[in-house]
Structures are given as C-alpha cells and as structure tokens.
C-alpha cells in the first residue's frame, strides 16, 4: 500500500517535472518568434496558438505535481495553528466534499469535451489553417486524472496522519524559499552569533 502511494507520488512528480520544461520551450519559442517577427520580418501564423497551448499544458499538467508537494495555496489563518490530527481530519472531510466531486466532474466533462473536438477534427480558428485543438483539449481529462490519483494519495495521507498523529513525510523537492541554499548564496553568517544588544 505504502509503496503504491509513493509510486503515484513519484509519478505525479515525474509528469509535473517533465512538463515544467515546457516553460523553457515557451521562453525560447516566444523569444525566437519576437526576433523572427521584428528582425527577420517573418512572423509565423501558428506561433500564437502554440504559445497558448504550451502555457495551458504547463499549468494543467503541473496541477498534480503541485498537489503532491502541498503547493496549492491554502487559507492559513487557522490551519497553520491546528494540530496535525485536526488538520488531517478537516482535510479528509473537505477532500470528499470539494475535491473528489469537483475533479471527477472536471475529468468527465473534459473527456466529453475533448472527444467532441476529436470527432469533428477541430482546428484552431484564431488563424486560417490553425493547428488542431483536440490534443490540447485532451489535456483537461488527462490532467484531471492525474490530479484525481494524487488526490487519493493525499486522502490516504490524511488517514495515516489521523492514525499516527503526525503527517507522513513527503519526498524532497526544490523549494521556493530554501533557507539553507539561500544562506550559501549570500554567504550568511551564523545568526545565533549575533548577541542581543544591551538594554
């Protein structure tokens, strides 16, 4: 069981990290397009469509990854002061109340939406002869499915936490504010060495 959970966790992370490289592609794509448009005087009609698709794919596919790293924004006013067991109980209830219905609905609706698009072989209408849209729409059910799987892992985490009284550990990942790394970056000295000024 535990192993299965971790492997889903790892899968979400892997998928999210793989898709996060899209931001590099997106940067290069737009930079090149700007260069090509203004300097080479050679704008490409499909550039805008591709831009939008890259952006949409990036954030949708990173949803499960972000969930697995507890990165979705929470209202912190009470939550951070609760005991882990209270936190887990609340989370467990709300996963069933909000998350599961919402994400299942999204996945299901997205599947029909994309299937419709595929059926009519839909192409983008932003420019004439635009690229096909159905693969992009397919991202909705795909991202929803990954999110659902990760949500189930999170639910099990809550159950473990309610049993053990503390949150099971998550796998390490790069942090936005990684104090140890930032310390190295600015060659910080030991803060405890700074004495309290005499009153």
């Amino acid at each position, binding site marked *: 069981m535990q192993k299965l959970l971790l492997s889903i966790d790892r899968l979400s992370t892997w998928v*999210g990290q793989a*898709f*996060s490289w899209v*931001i590099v592609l*997106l*940067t*290069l*794509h737009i930079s090149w*397009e*700007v260069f090509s*448009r*203004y300097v080479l005087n050679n704008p490409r009609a499909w550039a805008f469509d591709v*831009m*939008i698709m890259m*952006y*949409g794919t*990036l*954030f*949708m596919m*990173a*949803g499960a*990854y*972000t969930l697995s*790293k507890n*990165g*979705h*924004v929470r209202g*912190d*006013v*009470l*939550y951070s*002061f*609760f005991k882990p067991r209270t*936190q887990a109980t*609340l989370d467990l209830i*709300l*996963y069933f109340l*909000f*998350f599961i*219905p*919402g*994400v299942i*609905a*999204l996945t*299901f*609706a*997205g599947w*029909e*939406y994309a299937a419709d698009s595929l059926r009519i072989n839909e192409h983008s209408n932003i420019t004439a002869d635009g690229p096909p849209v159905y693969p992009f729409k397919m991202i*909705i059910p795909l991202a929803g499915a990954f999110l659902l799987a990760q949500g189930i892992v999170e639910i099990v985490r809550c159950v473990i936490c309610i049993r053990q009284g503390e949150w099971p550990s998550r796998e390490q990942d790069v942090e*936005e*504010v990684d*104090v140890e790394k930032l310390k190295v*970056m*600015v060659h*910080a000295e030991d*803060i*405890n060495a*700074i004495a309290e*000024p005499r009153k």
Partner: protein
Amino acid sequence: MTIRKELWFGFSLMAVIILVTVIFMPWSTMTSGHLGLLMLSLVVVAIMLGFPTAFTLMGMGVFFAWLSYRGVNPDVAVKHTLDLMVQRTYAVMSNDVLIAIPLFVFMGYLVERAALIEKLFKSLHLAMARVPGSLAVATIVTCAIFATATGIVGAVVTLMGLLAYPAMLKAGYNAKVGAGAITAGGCLGILIPPSVLLIVYGATAGVSVVQLYAGAFFPGLMLAALYVGYIIVLALIKPELMPPLPEAERKVVLPPLAAALAARGRNALTGLMGGFGTGRSGSAVLGQLLISLAPLVVVVSLLGTVYYSLTSPVVVDDTAGLVQAGGSFAAEENERKPEAGGLAEPKEESTGLAEPKEESTGLAEPKAESSGLTEPKGAGGGSTEPKANASPPASAAAPGTASVAAKSAAAASAKAADKPAAAVVAGPRVDAPLWFWWVAGGFVLALALLYWLWTWERLEIFKMLLGSFFPLAVLILAVLGSIVFGLSTPTDAAAGGAFGGCLLAAAYRYMALRKAPSPIGATVRELGGIIKESSFLTAKTSAMVCWLFVGSSIFSAAFALLGGQELVEKWVLSLGLTPIQFMILAQFIIFILGWPLEWTEIIVIFMPIFIPLLPKFGIDPLFFGLLVALNLQTAFLSPPVAMAAFYLKGVSPPHVTLNAIFAGMMPFMGIQVVALILLYVFPEIGLWLPKVLYGR
C-alpha cells in the same frame, strides 16, 4: 482545552460571518440570489478552514451551479453543469493574459538564482553611506529593485533577512526598524510592475495589463520613496535607533592602481588623465578612464539621439499616415488605443523611450500633420497587439482603423503611395524646441557636479554598481519599457525578460566561476541546474495561481448564475452611496479581507463582485485596480498571517521575537494607508502616465 490566541482571531471572524449570514438571510423567502450570497459567505468560511483554495472554489462552484441549473430544469442540470465547468476551465487554459504569469515567474526565479543580491546590497549600502539610516535605506532600495525583478516575496524577505538584518543589528540598529524595512521592502514587488498581481487583476477585471503596468509604476515608486523618507526622518529625529556606520564599515578599499594614483590628487578623473606615463600600465589606466567616462558617453548619446530625432528633416513617408490615423483615433476617444500609431517604424523606438512627453503632443494633436508633422513620433502609441503593427504600409492600416480616421489617413496613404516606403523627402533640419535645451542644460550640470565629486572612492562604488545595480535596472526597464511604450505585448516582454534573466544568471555564474579550472563548462553545468530548478518552481507556482483561477472562474460563474451579483448590486445601489463612500467602503472591505486571506484569493473571488459595480459609480476600473494593488500590500504585513513576518522570523536571531517584527511592520502599514489616501486624493499619480501614453 485552551484555545490559542491566534485561533481566537480566526474563529471569531468565522463566527461573525456565519452569524451575519444566519441573521440577515431571509430564510422564509429565499430566492436563488440569496443562495448565491450564502455561497459567498460559506466559501470565505471554507477557505479559512485551510483546504487548498482552488479545490474549495471548484467544489463549491460545481455544487451550486448544479443547484442553480436544477432549479430551472432538473433533467439537463448535470449536463449543463459539466459544460459550464469545462468551458470555464478551457477559457483559463487559453487565456492570453494569464500566459504572461509563468513567464514572469520564470524570469523571477532565474534572476533570484543569479545570486547578485549580495553585490547589489553591498554596493548600494556603500553608495548611500552618508545618508542617515543608510543601512535601512539601502535595504529598502535593494528590496525594491530585487523584488521588482523577481516578484517573490518569500525569497526576497529571506535573503534580506540573511544579508541586511545581521548587518543592521550589528551596526546597532533597532531590531524593530530593521524588521519593518525588510518586510515592507520585500513586498514592494507585488505592486511595482512587472508584477503578477496586476496580471491577475487585469485578467479578472478585463483591464489592459499594459495600462495597469503604466499606472502602477509611479504609485510603486511613491510607496518606496515614502518608506525611504520615513526612514531618513526617523534616523534624523531619533539617531539612537539607527546609529551612523563606523568609519571602518564605510571605507572603500582602493585597488593598488587607484591607491597609487590617489596620492596625486583626490579627483579620479583628472588623476586618471594625468595618470598616463607615470610608470603605470597604460591600458589599466585607460580602462579606468573609460569606466569613468561611461556616464558622459551615455548622456551624450542619449541627448544626441533625442536631438537627432527632434531636428530630423520634415519627413513625408508612410509613417505620417500611420501617425495621422493613430492620432485621430486617439482624439476620437475610442476605447481601442491607437494601434497603428507606433511600431511600424522601429527606428523611432529610442525616441519614444527617451522622451515620453513628446508622444502626447504627437497623439493629442492629430492636425500636426498639416503643419508638416515635424515629429513622426508615436512609437509606443499604446499598441496592445503587435500583429496590428506588422502591417507595414499605411494603406493597410487605414481600413483597420475607424471610419473617422480613414478619411484623413487616406490622404496620407495617397501621398505615401506615390513613392516606395523607403523613399523619404528630406527638407532642412528644424530647430530643436526650447525644452530640449533646458533638459540638456540640466544633464550637463548634473554631469559637471558628478565629475567634480568624482573621487577615487566614488569610482570604486560606481564600478560596483555597474556590476550589480545597472544590469538589473536595465533588465527591468527594458521589460517594462517595451510593455508600457507599446513595443511588445506583456507576453513577449515577459519571454524576453526570462531570456534576459537566463543570460544574467549565466553572466554572474561565469564571473563567480572565472577562476575555476574550466570556467565555461562549470558555468554551463550550474546554469543547467538553475534553469532546471527555476522551471520546476515555475511549474508549481503557475499551477498554483492558474488552478486557483480555474476554481474561481467556475465559482464566479455559479455566483452569477444564481443571481448573487444582481442582489449585491441592488443592495449596494439601494444604500445610496456617493462614489467616494463606495470607494472607501470597497477598499475597507478589501483591507479587512487582507487579514485572513491572501491577495490571490481576494482578487479572484471578490473582484468579480466589485468590478460590475464600478461603472454605476463612475469609477475607472484601472484606477480601482491601482488602489487595490496598493491596498493588498497591507495584506502581507497584517498579522496574524503576514507571510513576510514569518519568513523573516525564520532567519533572524532568537532574541528577535515575532511580536517585535509585527511591531516593526506597523509604521510601514501606516505608510501604506497614507499612500493609499495620497493616490486617492491625487489620482494623477497613477493615471498620468497611462493618460500621456494611451490618451485615456
């Protein structure tokens, strides 16, 4: 069980909301609009429970949308709900405003990892050594610049907490003042463009991000200036809070060459000029001399470019038609800004950047063409769509513009059609206007003062600034400038910024590794690591913001479906408020919401409720957005959820308590309120630049 103090606050807030809802809800005569309001108050309570907000909104939205559809026709309720949901999601996925968010976030992470903050702080702190409260002032300036480039509050506060806070404490600064300066400064990135908050607001409210950026620029600078002013005044009144630095801390160590030459005279410029042939290496002296002359070169080239374009001969080419079309377009006070106004002629861009004032005349006086159109300006006419600019000839631009413009543009395009676009009829050069000579005189005076005070120490400080402050400033100004002057869309500029951030990171890594065995290989390896980390973080942050957007757009659709919006509107209008009262009420509500909620939640949930009310009171959504952005600064500094305080606490010495940090933040919160009032009383602070640039 005793409830902790912090919990009391949240619980009482929740109780108040539920109580108000229960008391005021007309349970016996409930309409679907009331259901909408119930949903709104429930969602605030639910968010405070701490579940990821995106899914709280999504779950609630789906449930209430279904409820609403079921009230109409139970048979198709599920299908309609699903349709609504997926269409809302797809709209966020293909939103061409939000696309700038991951790019700006990526740029921020790259710049942060370029590791130039240490140099930046040191050089600014030396440069400002004589200012009262110099360390705190340098902290705020560093924060403002770095936060603007990165936009990551947590990282900026943590970094400055590691870098500036120990320095301030060691110098005998009051712990509260230092904490306030760091936390307040770190939050400036939220307001000063390019900020993500303004993109989110723009996408929610349907306001042009370009105009928001132009509008938020001066309020952001004003807030930073107020902080700095407060610090300086405080340091003058109570020097014991911020003792001046000891001589040893301020001293700039001169390199051997400068030290040797400094013995011959204090002024570096004359010293260097006389430095040739004194037995020193000629090339080293020349290098220093060139660096010293850099400000002169920049000013001269700037003035020269402006002079050249001001006095350029009377030109009758296709630009005239474009400017004409753009000008009359602006005069028409059309919502769409003069798209065709700029950019067809890229060589004018530099002028547009150098002298924004000139554009106002170009745009405001469409008749200028008859008098020869001496200034074919209009670069940065506020174009939001570069595609429109790609159409080169005037004849192509004319049909795209309004019919009013078409007539006058036709005349110009007829002229242009006579000759190829490249052909230019040159006339005699015209005289530069008087203001140019005033500006030039001012620059010359400033240069003279600069070189008169150009000591060897200042040369060293200048060199340090050159390596830290200027690259960052150039990056920010290039990104921001190309957006507000309409040279590119925010998306293009953000991508360029990310690319620039990458180059910046590469350059600084290379400088740090210069002495390593194989510097290039090591740099590439480190850069790869930086890009990898930055893109992972970007994916997480964008997913966080954009999924929140997905949730909130489903939620607000449900709210609108239930008719909650109409009820709110009816209620607010029935209060008979004046616009001022409404504005104060709205800002007060946002201020209060800033305590328990974060800015993302406030904007995506509550702005859709406020925005439709604005036209009823004749309030400009752009102006409202600027006030909201300024107001939400307080959300970061208000206890008990002030993120900034917790980040600082995490890296400060144990004797600095969280309460001391909160106490230090209070005066800065006061300044934010003052800034809010100032902006409200003098809307020109924010609206002047958009007015000049886009003629709104």
